[in-house]
């Protein structure tokens, strides 16, 4: 009995002696917020190695350069500008800082390129009597080509919606799946739609995550597999339309579709965004978003900076003046040939 009492006393003593599990809290000052933000990114961001190889990103050098610009006499707006510029060094559309008065962002991946999408032109193709199933706009074009516009993956459509759309367009000779200007949403919605275009379980890419604070601490590559839908599946030719504003979950969708049979991607390079974003926060309460879980194509290549189309096509000025969407017309030609 004495041994038992002694053992239990030792356990409680050990409990008391083990130090508290705690995390350093930085001061709510410009310097403290700078240090906290740099560290959040340093410990959690997932593309340091890739971006060092691609354009020479050196996060330690970024610290040195921006640390000199921070002083505790700064206003909130000045601090926001400096910290926002620092985050811009990551060249990542998934990296944002949310202040009550502004949103820091890096949108060059689409702002520096032609839009290659016009809702004015799209209206000429959709007309006014098109159908909408849980956000998916669709109709048969004059040459018996099916057209579906998916503008977001934030609205999760159900299998019933997809069955109805597939049935309605079943007699078409081919299908145009337009995801231009779709900035992403839920990965589950993207894979649900892509699952209508494969009859086999196929490898579509890889995903991994960080396992520690080190910049190269990652898990092994886990396969991303696309399983065929149990609902109605499309068996004819498909053309997926893309532009630079295709990002995040939609970038993943294009990656999945490129692995499906009978699929051709037409348009501009996608915007990328291959890191699933996580959130954190700074001492002053500003929220931060950053890429945390990197995703790769089936060759193991990072798609952070986008996916090349099979046919690079842009909307020409002449076609725009004539009310023609060059990319849709190219897709129709492909499907009718």
């Amino acid at each position: 009995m004495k041994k038992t009492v002694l053992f239990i006393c030792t356990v409680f003593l050990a409990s008391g002696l083990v130090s508290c599990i705690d995390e350093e809290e930085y001061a709510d000052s410009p310097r403290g917020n700078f240090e906290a933000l740099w560290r959040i990114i340093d410990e959690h961001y997932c593309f340091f190695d890739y971006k060092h190889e691609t354009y020479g990103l050196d996060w330690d050098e970024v610290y040195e350069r921006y640390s000199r610009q921070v002083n505790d006499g700064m206003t909130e707006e000045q601090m926001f500008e400096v910290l926002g510029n620092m985050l811009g060094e990551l060249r990542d559309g998934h990296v944002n800082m949310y202040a009550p008065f502004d949103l820091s962002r890096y949108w060059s991946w689409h702002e520096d390129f032609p839009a290659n999408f016009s809702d004015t032109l799209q209206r000429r193709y959709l007309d006014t009597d098109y159908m909408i199933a849980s956000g998916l706009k669709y109709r048969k074009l004059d040459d018996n080509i099916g057209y579906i516009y998916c503008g977001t993956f934030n609205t999760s459509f159900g299998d019933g919606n997809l069955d109805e759309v597939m049935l309605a367009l079943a007699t078409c000779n081919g299908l145009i799946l337009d995801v231009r200007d779709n900035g992403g949403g839920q990965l589950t919605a993207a894979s649900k739609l892509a699952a209508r275009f494969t009859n086999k379980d196929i490898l579509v890419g890889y995903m991994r995550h960080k396992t520690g604070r080190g910049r190269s601490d990652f898990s092994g590559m886990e396969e991303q597999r696309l399983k065929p839908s149990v609902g109605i599946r499309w068996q004819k030719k498909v053309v997926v339309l893309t532009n630079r504003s295709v990002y995040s979950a939609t970038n993943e969708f294009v990656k999945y579709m490129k692995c499906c049979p009978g699929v051709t991607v037409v348009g501009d390079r996608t915007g990328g965004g291959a890191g699933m974003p996580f959130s954190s926060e700074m001492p002053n309460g500003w929220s931060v978003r950053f890429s945390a879980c990197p995703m790769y194509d089936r060759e193991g290549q990072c798609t952070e900076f986008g996916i090349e189309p099979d046919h690079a096509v842009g909307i020409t000025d002449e076609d725009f003046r004539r009310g023609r969407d060059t990319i849709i017309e190219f897709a129709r030609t492909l499907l009718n040939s």
Partner: protein
Amino acid sequence: MKIFRTALCMALLTVSVAAGGQTDSTEYMRGYAAGRAAAMLEGKQESPSPQKIITNARMLGVGGVNILDTYISPEKYRGTELRYISHTTRMREWGTRVSRQIVHQGYVSHTENRSGDGDEIAGMYCFSYGAHYNMALCGGSLTVKVGGTLDADIGFLYNTRNSNNPAQARLSLAVSPSAIAEWRFRAWKRPFTLRYEVGAPLVGVMFSPNYGQSYYEIFSRGDYDHNVVPTTIASTPSLRQMLTLDFTLHRTTLRVGWIGDWQQAEVNNLKYHSYSNMFVVGIVRSFKTTRVSP
């Protein structure tokens, strides 16, 4: 579990009625300790079928909580916690020195970060089943119990503004050595019981995502990565303490006191702590069960 608790309450009520009513826990403890001490000293049995004494305390607690979960935020969240505790001890009147203990705890908390811009909501249910060896000291006025409990916790922590890491699931199982000291005394011609209980997890298992792993990978893709983590006192140095005073008011025994529930974990390079300190108040009831042969 609700059904189980309802069934337990019904059973307690039934045995109470069958036994002809309830006894005051303080009075019980005084009589129980004296009777048992005498029985032990004389080495004889008082009756061929010892009755089972069930002491149940139902308490409500309110207090402050400090939460850190680095999967969600490096910032600590502070706020208020509301807790319900059902604490039951079962023991035979004589013939054994081992008592059994069942504790149900349910709590919710609302916390904010230091800037006041972020909110977190937490909820947890904790079940504990334990056994203790009882030692009567100081002529029966002091009882020291040593033993262990099996603790099962399930709950969540939700941050209202995060994107793909808005919540954290809590699921753990642990074996915890525990000790209890009960001192029965009289003051102002009234009986009191001062009670202190402490427990610390020694070994167990808990669920945790990996450092930067999303719940999408775990639950939508089935990509597991050290998500069931063996724990020891080194990785989960935690302590649950309760200091209470039982006293009688008219024919009711009330319990007031303090609970310090300090839970910590550092697994998969993620840090977690939840420090709760709260005032509790409740009612203590004791029942005797009697076997009735048809």
